[in-house]
Each structure stands twice: as structure tokens, then as C-alpha cells.
């Protein structure tokens, strides 16, 4: 049965899509903007730009001083942030409903007039901050570069998903203020975004407020679409074997998967869940509980819109166990699933888990606003938040096996392994 969260949608004259989901039971409102620009849009030489804007967007705009975006919203009781992903960037805040106008004004000022404030000084400063972010999140932790290595193998050079959102520090270093301005002018405008408002405001008042603050912003020339990333399953095996000072040996396999929004992707995601999710997944039962060759296993699908998605399976070897054993067991389970399929009980279990995850995601105004923006921007249909559970429930054991047979195979994968160096020395 579908959920019943209300959805109302209007498009302003300048092309901004506005979606409102009123909920008067809580005293707060969530504002969420998805811009149709992510790392998949970045041409060679400009990697990391979408993410760099996630930083610059907090450095002030025509009528907002540097740091003021944060301080005004925090004082109004907001929780706020932004995120960058392969497919899009996302700017959001939740706050007591009396602050709705403030939030919209701040978002509109930076959508329309960010470049007034982007200069050499704050570009240099935020470039330094991004480098520290990369050191903290990727370089200074064991296995921190695994995804970077995997997407490089899983997709051909120049493919929209072949580089990570953090980008290349060399590209960022080479960026001039004019490069940065040009990137903004190309992608950041009302007709390349979705604005979602969820919470303690009437539908009419929300639309009025959206018009009041965003209505005057001019549309931008239609941005170029991201390069088409359509590509089928892997047809061979590629490896990247790393020896370094890691605490335990680890393997991660990556598979290409069907594009997001299709029953086939849902089926492939459920197949990975049956292998790797929760305590009752096949890999946990066999590798961790029964054979005790792994300390932990994990995995799942990462849905993407640009012609292909990907999914992973990871195992960390138990102390003293050869990582090859973990790899062999993973491959055996992959092939067994493809050959023999899954039971209806296993499928019902991962579907029940997916239902809980989805209900939790929608349990806050912020979470609901994020998914509404997601489905409005990437699928043109915000109401999919209400039918998402039904879509997942509709997947059959036959579909799971068929998706697994096609996409999740021993002979169609890439993998990275990390093994402790014999000498114990650093790389």
C-alpha cells in the first residue's frame, strides 16, 4: 500500500521546480535544494569542481557576508549542510518554521549572486580546506582510497563515474577564479534545480514564499547534459592489489549494476542484500559465524542515474587467515546465488529491512525533503517517495536471480585487495 505524504508541485516562470509537502504536526520546516550537477558532469581537468562549490556556497554571496549563511541560520535554530555526489549536489537546512523566509532568501541569494563573493582569497582558502578534507577522509585512514581505485577499474577512462566527487587535487590547484566562475554560470540557476519545502507551512504559503525569493532570478542557458554513461555488465576481471600498513587484510569487489529507477536495479540491490546485509545475510552466516574466516562482511548497491550503477561486497579477513580464502568464499557465494537463486524467505527478509530503512529515511522533514528532491530532480516524479516500498515489495525471486546472473558474477568484477606488508613498513 502506498504511503500518503502529500505532494504539491509548481514550476516557476524561470524554470525552478518547487515541491511542497505540508506537515503541521511538527514546529519545523525543511528546505532542500538539489542542483543537477554532480561529479559526473565534470569534464576532464575540472574534477572536484561540484564539490568545491559545496564549500564556496558558504563563503557569502551578493548580500550575505562570508560566514553569515551559517551564523544567521544557526541563530534561527537550524541544522544545515550540503553534500556532493556523483549525480547531484544538495544544499539543505531544517529549522523552526518562523525561519522559512530566511532560509529561502539565503538559498536564493547564493543561487543568483554567489559569484559576487567568489574571489582569489576564498578560493585559495577553501581549496586548502578541501585538501584537509581529502587527507582526513581518504588519505589518513586505512583503505581510504579503495573506492577511488575501484571506480577507476570499473569504468573506462573519461566515464562519468570513473572519478570520485572529491576530485583531483591537481585539477583544483590548476583552477583559476575564472574557471570557477564559468562552472557556476553553467550549472547553477533556477531551471537546473529542484526546491523542496517540507513541514510546518501551508502549501499555498510555501509556494508564495518560493516565488517571493526565487521568482526574480533569471534562468540560465540549458546546461549541457552529463555524458551518457550507459554501459553493460563487466565482462572480465580486473584487480588492484595493494600492499600497505593496514590493520587487517581486506578485499572489496565492485560490480556494475543496472541504472537507478528500474526494477532490475532493485532486484540487483536485493541480491547484494541477501548476500551481505544484516546478521542473517549469507556472507555473515558463512564467513563470519560458521567458518570464521572473516571479521566482518558488508556490501550493497549504490543507485546511480547516468546509465549504470554499481555495487560492492567487502570482507575483512580474520587474523591469520589468507585473504584468498575470503575471496574464494565470496566468489563461491556469488556464483551459487546466480545458479540457484534465492528463497522467498530470504527475499522477504531483505524487503522488510528495506521497508524499515525507507520509513526511517522519511521519518524527519529533512529526510523526506531530500528524497522528494531526489525523485523530482532525477525522475521528474516526487510522488515516488510514496510508492517506493511497493516497488521494492514487487520484486520477485525470479527477478533477483535474473539480475544477479547478469550483473553480479565472478567473471565480471573488479576488486581491490589490501594486504599487510611483510616488513611492516609504510608505502
Amino acid at each position, binding site marked *: 500500500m502506498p504511503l500518503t505524504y502529500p505532494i504539491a508541485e509548481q514550476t516557476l516562470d524561470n524554470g525552478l521546480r518547487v515541491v511542497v509537502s505540508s506537515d503541521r504536526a511538527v514546529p519545523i520546516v525543511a528546505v532542500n535544494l538539489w542542483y543537477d550537477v554532480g561529479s559526473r558532469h565534470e569534464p576532464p581537468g575540472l574534477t572536484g569542481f561540484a564539490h568545491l562549490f559545496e564549500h564556496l556556497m558558504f563563503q557569502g554571496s551578493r548580500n*550575505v557576508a562570508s*560566514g553569515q549563511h551559517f551564523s544567521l541560520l544557526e541563530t*534561527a535554530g*537550524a541544522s544545515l549542510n550540503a553534500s556532493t555526489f556523483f549525480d547531484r549536489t544538495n544544499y539543505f537546512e531544517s*529549522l523552526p*518554521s518562523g525561519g522559512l523566509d530566511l532560509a529561502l532568501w539565503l538559498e536564493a541569494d547564493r543561487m543568483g549572486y554567489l559569484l559576487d563573493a567568489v574571489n582569489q582569497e576564498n578560493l585559495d582558502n577553501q581549496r586548502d580546506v578541501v585538501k584537509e578534507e581529502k587527507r*582526513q577522509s581518504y588519505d589518513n585512514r586505512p583503505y581510504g582510497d579503495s573506492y577511488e581505485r575501484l571506480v577507476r577499474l570499473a569504468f573506462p577512462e573519461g566515464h562519468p563515474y570513473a572519478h570520485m566527487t572529491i576530485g583531483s587535487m591537481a585539477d583544483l590547484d590548476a583552477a583559476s577564479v575564472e574557471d570557477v566562475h564559468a562552472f557556476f554560470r553553467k550549472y547553477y540557476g533556477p531551471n537546473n534545480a529542484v526546491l523542496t519545502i517540507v513541514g510546518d507551512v501551508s502549501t499555498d504559503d510555501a509556494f508564495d514564499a518560493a516565488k517571493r525569493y526565487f521568482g526574480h532570478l533569471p534562468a540560465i542557458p540549458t546546461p549541457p547534459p552529463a555524458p551518457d554513461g550507459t554501459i553493460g555488465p563487466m565482462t572480465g576481471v580486473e584487480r588492484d592489489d595493494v600492499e600497505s600498513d593496514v590493520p587487517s587484510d581486506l578485499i572489496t569487489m565492485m560490480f556494475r549494476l543496472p541504472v537507478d529507477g528500474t526494477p532490475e536495479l532493485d532486484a540487483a540491490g536485493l541480491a547484494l542484500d541477501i548476500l551481505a546485509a544484516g546478521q542473517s545475510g549469507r556472507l555473515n*552466516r558463512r564467513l563470519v559465524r560458521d567458518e570464521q574466516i572473516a571479521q566482518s562482511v558488508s556490501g550493497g548497491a549504490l543507485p546511480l542515474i547516468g546509465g549504470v550503477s554499481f555495487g560492492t561486497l567487502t570482507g575483512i579477513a580474520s587474523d591469520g587467515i589468507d585473504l584468498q580464502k575470503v575471496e574464494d568464499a565470496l566468489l563461491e557465494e556469488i556464483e551459487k546465488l546466480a545458479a540457484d537463486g534465492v528463497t522467498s524467505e530470504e527475499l522477504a527478509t531483505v524487503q*522488510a529491512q528495506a521497508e524499515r530503512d525507507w520509513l526511517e529515511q522519511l521519518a524527519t522533514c529533512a529526510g523526506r525533503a531530500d528524497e522528494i528532491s531526489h525523485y523530482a530532480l532525477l525522475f521528474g516524479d516526487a510522488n515516488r517517495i510514496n510508492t517506493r516500498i511497493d516497488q521494492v515489495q514487487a520484486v520477485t525471486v525470479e527477478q533477483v536471480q535474473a539480475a544477479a546472473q547478469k550483473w553480479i558474477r565472478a567473471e565480471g568484477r573488479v576488486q581491490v585487495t589490501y594486504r599487510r606488508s611483510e616488513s611492516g613498513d609504510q608505502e
Partner: protein
Amino acid sequence: MSQVLTTPPAVGAPRPWKFPEAVTTRTSVGAPVHVFDRPGQYVATVRVTIAMPLIAEPRELEGVATIMSRTLDEGTELHSANEFAAALERHGAAYGVDVSSDALHVEISVPVSHLAPAVELLAEAITRPAFNQADVGRHVTIRLGEINQERANAGYRAREAFAAHLFDASTRRSRPTAGRPDTIRPLTNVEVADFYRNNIGPERAEILFAGDATGVDVAGIIDAAFSNWTSSAGTALETPEPIYLPGNRVVLVDRPGSVQSQLLIGCAGPDRRDPAWGAAAVANHVVGGTITSRVDTVLREEKGYTYGTRTSFAAPRKGGTFSLGGAVRTEVTGAAIGDALRILREARDGLTEQEVQEAKDSLIRTAPLRYEQADSVAQQVGSNIANGVPVDFADTYLTKIAATTAAEATDAYRRYVDTDGLLVVVVGEAKDVRPQLESLDLGDLIELS
């Protein structure tokens, strides 16, 4: 047609807000049950909070409480470990345990439509664990592997060194909650079952529900599931006051290959019994609680040394800490510490009226966001119980914050920060960082590997 507004629009007054109210009953075996009805929250959390001060662990078996907690669901008198997980997850439930210095929390989150069977399984794990040696032995091995992962994690290493050098060795919190290799290795199901028998029982437990209770007899479901819980464990021991080590000192943990230095700088702080707990939170917000605070304005926004640092006053049941944590580029480690210490010390000279007002507004007005989701209500109430304060402590806390003046916030801060010296912990490439630390002249430098 809209026009460009060049100044920020006014913010309307927030609707009044109070922490959600509970209906409290007792199970037939005496444990209090607090039901927080949260309409629209279709995923409920059921959390059992059991007083479990870690001083109950024998010194040579530290970590036994953690292994016991992690093996509650690894086989019960009725189900094997695999059967139990399959049954629970078939209901769409997620199960978890958390061990803190004062309490064990065991919880499930589950769609309300599957509440009764999931609560039965939760009760089964808590009241009828099997503690088979095969499962306990496996968790000992997993914990040893986890210790390897912790040793590779700069943030963890910093917290471990901070605790070891802030607290006297007689204080349990000077050592890791989940034990060390030499105290974990000897554990078998005998020690684990003993610890369970002596420390887990209904007299030490409170049970929380948060979620949409419309048309559901939550208290009845919980009572039915826990009605057979018996135990010879009486009430728990009281956690003793911690003993702090005073004075300025620097601990450098060598982590070869590091490209950043992980910092943790701090000292003793208040706990919730201190009337200044709320004022201290206000002061913290000004000094280092957010990206716009005094510390990050310099370290991140001005200097670009870091992706971000934060300060906090934190406390379990007894005895708190103040700390500033974050990672900075190796080459600027000394400069970043110098700036951070200067800012921490200058804050003793006084926080401004405007800073304090903005901090109060932020802390008070974000409350409805913090407790919007059912699970966050259960988390907060569980930690309130563990910390020995009333379930609606959030209201008292916010009232105190609202009443805090700039002078009181400054006083609360001055009473703790840099009064008895500061402990500076740095985890990074020692050969590059050591000279930078020596030139700062911060007191005795202890180097660990």
C-alpha cells in the same frame, strides 16, 4: 513579481516546545516502562537501559561487559545465533547494543506493525542468552581484530591516549571500555556468564518505547515479553568519582605515514550534577561548538589548517571532560596548536553578550529538530537514565540555558578550562611533529608508539 531583498528577512518566533512526555508504568517484574507516543513515527525504537557500571569488571578481565553484551543475541535458550538473526530481521527489525561506562543499552528499531514479535525476541536476548563457548570465543577473536583496526585509526588513538593521561590509573575510564588484548584473551563463556548473572537483572533495568503507539498496547506487549525475567542481581554499584591528573602535558603518539596530525586538547569538565552544566554548553558553543565558533573561524576559515575542529563538554554519570578535537595538516601542527591554545585561553577573558545570545538561540531553537525522530527520543532518554538524571532532563537543561548570562557562561568556562592545566594529545608523524611541539614549550612531552 519578486524583488531582490538586500537584507535578511525577519525570523518569526518559534512555537513553544517541550520534550515529549512519557506514560510510565512498571512490568510485573518491576522494571519501569516509559512509553513516548510519537504520532507519525512508523518505526519505533524499544530500548532497554540496564545500569552496568564498568567498575563491576575484574581488573584483569576488562572488556567482559562488552563481550557479554555482544553475545546476548548470539544464541539463546530457544534459538541458535543464525536462527535468532533470521527471525528478527524477518520482522524488519534492526538490533543493537551499546556499552558505556555506566550502562548497557540493548535496543531494536522496528516498524510498529511488527512490534510484538520483535519485542519478544529482544526480551529473549536479554533474559535467556545461551553464552555458548563457540560464540563467545568468536567474539573474543573479533574484538582482537577490532583492536587492530582501532590502533590504525588516528581519532581512536587520540581518544585512548587522552583518557589514559587525563585520568589516574585507578579510574576505570583511563582504559578502553571494551578491554585490551591481555584482558580479552582469557575470556571464556564461564566468565561471561558469571558477569551476566551478577550484573544483569530487572532491578537495574528501565524499558523505553518511542514511536507511533496509536492503537497499540505498548506497555502490555513489553510486560508480556519481559514477565518471566528473574535474576539474583540486585541493584547496581554506584560509579565512583573519577580522579583527574592535573598539569600541562603533551602526549605525542607516533603514527608513521600520517599526512595529518589528530589533535585532542582538554581537561576536566562538569557533569550534569553541576548547576553550570547548561552555562558550560553555552560557552562551548561560542568557543568551538560550531563552524562559526572562535576556533574554526581561525583554524578553518582564516588559515585553512583543517577540515574542521570542534570543542565539547561531555560527561557520563560522574566527572566530565572538556576537549577540542580535529585533524590538521602535519606541517602546521605546531602553529595550529598554538592558535588553538591562544583562543582557548583568551576565551577565559570573557564571552560577549552577542556571542552568548546567539549560542543560546541556537541551542534552544534546534531542540525540536534534535528530537523529531522517535529513535533520537529513545537515545536521549536512555542516556539520561544512564547518567542519573530525569527522563525529561532536556527541559531542565534548556531552561538553564535560557537563563544563562554572558558572565555565567564565562564563569562556567573559567572554572574548568586551563584551570589545572591542559593535556595536549597529538597523533601523527612524530619525526615531523616533535620539533614543532618542542618549540611551543608546553610542558613535559611523552612520546608513545
